[in-house]
């Protein structure tokens, strides 16, 4: 008896934004009509596109943003546990990016400056639901193991497309000038 024709399983991709601005997700959308081509190759798990809150077993995890609070650590570890390949997407995930510029400042001083009202009274929000801030903003490879890095603020749509198509078709992803940009 002939085995039924097996349809190739679509690769599952999860994306998340930690302490990022969603610019890298915008850049992912910026691959424009190639999104349809991408949709033939992958299906999305946890992502702002699907609004799924927790990550299931996935092939590729794309992480945007650095790690600035306790929730970011949980989300990042969940992605690492569930994804075969974890990708640091954009400058913040790669080196902390602009949020990491607070690393030179005292966090208490930061909060009291930001939450000081016109009368000079400081009211820092204090709710159990608010995730605890870390002392610094960390690149994601200082918290979990990362397989690939894609720098840029954000990486351009073309860069993301080149990287994803390399990865999805089994080539070693290679980003070189002029697609390799740190800004």
């Amino acid at each position, binding site marked *: 008896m002939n085995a039924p024709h097996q349809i190739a399983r679509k690769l599952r991709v999860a994306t998340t934004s930690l302490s990022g601005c969603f610019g890298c997700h915008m850049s992912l959308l910026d691959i424009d009509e190639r999104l349809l081509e991408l949709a033939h190759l992958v299906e999305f798990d946890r992502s702002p596109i699907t609004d799924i809150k927790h990550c299931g077993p996935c092939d590729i995890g794309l992480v945007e943003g650095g790690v600035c609070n306790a929730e970011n650590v949980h989300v990042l570890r969940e992605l690492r546990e569930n994804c075969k390949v974890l990708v640091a997407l954009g400058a913040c995930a*790669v080196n902390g990016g602009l949020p990491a510029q607070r690393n030179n400042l005292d966090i208490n001083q930061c909060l009291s400056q930001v939450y000081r009202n016109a009368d000079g009274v400081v009211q820092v929000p204090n709710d159990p639901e608010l995730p605890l801030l870390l002392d610094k903003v960390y*690149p994601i490879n200082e918290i979990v193991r990362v397989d690939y890095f894609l720098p840029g603020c954000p990486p351009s749509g073309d860069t993301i497309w080149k990287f994803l198509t390399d990865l999805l078709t089994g080539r070693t992803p290679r*980003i070189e000038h002029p697609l390799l940009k740190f800004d």
Partner: protein
Amino acid sequence: MSDYNTSGFDSANMFSIDGRRIPFKPGQTILQAALEAGVYIPHLCHHPDLKPHGSCKLCTVTVNGRNGSACTARALPGLEVENDTPALNDRRRVLLQMLFVEGDHFCPGCEKSGNCQLQALAYDLEMVAPHFRHFFPKRTVDASHPDIWLDLNRCIMCELCVRASRDIDGKNVFMLAGRGANSQVVVNSPTGLLKDSALTADDAAAQICPVGAILHKRVGYSVPIGQRQFDDATIGHQVEYLARRHIPIKPVAVDAPKMPEKEGV
């Protein structure tokens, strides 16, 4: 440099880099001869107007089987130099990564981005991540000078400003002080601030910084993305381009000629 014998090439004055024959004038270093011939050896602390320093070690090449800095090693007849090899480029990438984590090199927030030699080298050597744990140092930012600002968080301690101020400007505005991880550039003025020093905006020391540590005020982001020095062509390609046209190679010059995107070698 002025103290070099420039009596012209002798037929015996040839050595090889990666199998390519390179002519040199007696007294030239390997790096000077290579740049003149259009062969790019990555470097940060070298500048054609200044004496060799040998501090960044990016230009490390293998000379007759032994490693040495191309900016300090003299070119000699018959040398066999390896430059563009995976092993040497790996080491250069590690050096770059260490430079990136030791300072605050956040390219999206830096005015020098696109014109920065450290960034250009990272592109050239395809460095995608700093790899090591970041120092996130807390160093001084001196904005006291009316025309120049000094951000030591971006300093890579190549000492180009120190040497330019001493040897070209004759002012001795900058000096390196401290030891190890506490080394930093200090300013020669009664208060230690730039505003009380002899530095002026047209000094060579104010132009020469290869990264965003010494910047001119009120010119930030004046050149749009896409038109900056290293946007179209890699730094290695630009050196080849300049050498072919016998244009003096000064990769950090702000008025460097614009490179075309595609140019046959």
